[in-house]
């Protein structure tokens, strides 16, 4: 930068000094590249980002206060609106915390466990498809977005058949799931897996191997493993930095210990470990793993009940406190619930992965180019619905 500035000054008539000045740039809250209503105050020097500060809260509706005013069953509905791209995971995370209050006597029926895994993994694919598609758009590739949405549409149609909703499912409930899935539907999901796997190769051809895309993302926004842990980053953001932490492997919840899958991590294949490309590539590879899990689940799904009889229509979780986490598309989604034995929970606290992931933004964007800031925000793949809650 400095050498460039000097050369410009030398060219200026009369040797006038053409120094660049610091400028405070307001990006958002309504900006297509911020993936929602995120506002970033950027201190720039020419095209360089000297510092930036994310301002969040534009979507705040105090989800946690809502939960203190509605019954436990109604609260499931509010969780849909947290990370609205992975509502199955939100439902599951919240229900798991409530189920933990019941203790080991509460057994979730096998069939419900399998349905949960299938839905969660399909939802992860749908969410990653959106992340990858919009990320391509962020850095100038429009075509992959259209392909990604074509595939995502198929998953949303499956969900529409299963529970009547395309985004806010309210499907996984304490004790099981809301409706059963018929065999025709399971066959359709199997067909989707066969259809989808070759499509991932197409994305690799279109985007992952695209020289322009690689140049825009490799060595950009490098996040070291230590910094990621310090900021509580989880999910693909942490794994992109080369840390193989996945709750489905480390602390298997549900029935994840029965499935075989790998945990992809960033390896710096085009640049440095923990750059934007690594975070992107982890998501692409996770889609393959998710498809693997869905296929295994489809093979062994048993028949039977879909809801535990122990949980009645009026849910009164036993007195106690529980904190549980699941591996959602964007990282560890946790719920801290406090129950005093009434139908309405005393306190619900949501630990949202995007809240942590976006807080690291100033650290990894300092000193980058302004256009790279867009690439960095996109690679963190945040959903403001859960940042702001």
């Amino acid at each position, binding site marked *: 930068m400095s050498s460039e500035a000097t050369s410009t000054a030398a060219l200026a008539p009369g040797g006038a000094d053409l120094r660049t000045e610091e400028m405070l740039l307001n990006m958002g809250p309504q900006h297509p590249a911020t993936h929602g209503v995120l506002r970033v105050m950027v201190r720039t020097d020419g095209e360089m980002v000297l510092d930036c500060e994310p301002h969040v809260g534009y979507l705040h509706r*105090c989800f946690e206060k809502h939960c203190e005013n509605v019954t436990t069953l109604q609260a499931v509905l509010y969780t849909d609106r947290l990370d609205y791209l992975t509502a199955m995971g939100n439902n599951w995370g919240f229900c798991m915390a409530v189920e933990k209050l019941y203790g080991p006597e509460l057994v979730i029926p096998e069939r419900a466990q399998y349905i949960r895994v299938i839905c969660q993994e399909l939802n992860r694919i749908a969410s990653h498809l959106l992340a990858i598609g919009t990320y391509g758009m962020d850095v100038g590739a429009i075509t992959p977005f259209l392909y990604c949405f074509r595939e995502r549409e198929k998953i949303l149609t499956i969900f529409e058949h299963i529970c009547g909703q395309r985004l806010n499912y309210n499907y996984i409930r304490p004790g099981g799931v809301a409706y059963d899935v018929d065999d025709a539907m399971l066959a359709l999901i199997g067909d989707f897996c066969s259809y989808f796997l070759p499509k991932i190769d197409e994305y690799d051809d279109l985007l992952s191997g695209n020289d322009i895309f690689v140049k825009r993302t490799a060595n950009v926004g490098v996040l070291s493993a230590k910094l990621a842990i310090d900021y509580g980053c989880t999910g693909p953001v942490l794994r992109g930095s080369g840390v193989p932490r996945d709750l489905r492997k480390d602390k298997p919840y549900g029935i994840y210990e029965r499935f075989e899958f790998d945990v992809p991590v960033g390896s710096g294949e085009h640049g440095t470990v923990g750059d934007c490309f690594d975070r992107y590539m982890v998501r692409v590879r996770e889609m393959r793993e998710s498809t693997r899990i869905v296929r295994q689940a489809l093979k062994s799904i048993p028949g039977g009940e879909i809801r535990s009889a122990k949980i009645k229509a009026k849910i009164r979780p036993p007195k106690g406190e529980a904190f549980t986490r699941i591996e959602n598309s964007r990282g560890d989604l946790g719920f801290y619930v406090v129950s005093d034995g009434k139908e309405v929970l005393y306190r619900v606290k949501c630990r949202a992965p995007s809240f942590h992931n976006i807080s690291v933004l100033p650290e990894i964007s300092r000193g980058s180019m302004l256009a790279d800031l867009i690439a960095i925000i996109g690679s963190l793949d945040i959903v403001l619905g859960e940042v702001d809650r």
Partner: protein
Amino acid sequence: MERGAIVAEVRKAFGERITEVDEAALEPFVRCEASTWPDLARFLKERCGLDMLVCLSGIDRGKGVGLEAVYNLERCDASRVGIAVKIRVPYEAAVIPSVETVWRTADWHEREAWDLLGIRFEGHHNLVRILCAEDWEGHPLRKDYKSPDRYHGIKNNVV
């Protein structure tokens, strides 16, 4: 190091300063006074290797008890061993020392707990509201919170 070993280490190092330990609870925790917290936080991170602050939950425990902060800590390796630390403070002196220099994610979490519950984190470099608007009044997650009738002339229609 298992959770039991961590608790034993903490007990050995802090003795009476740890006021309560419950390993049988659904969420095993240790409790300490606010004044012990900075030392304990550093000890847990540096000596016990709990390098990730997973979650900070503020809870209004109601009249006669006060406010509580629950820190869920974890070691970010395959063991994922962790423990919760609970700190209780009275309403009239709801102050807990900040640990943003120990775990940097505490920065935003403490701002959130200040915003929604009014727990003041002493030593925080920028303790301002994070989720609510800057000029919002009150702390919504307090149990005695009343939502305002109007905000900048906009009527509140929510009952």
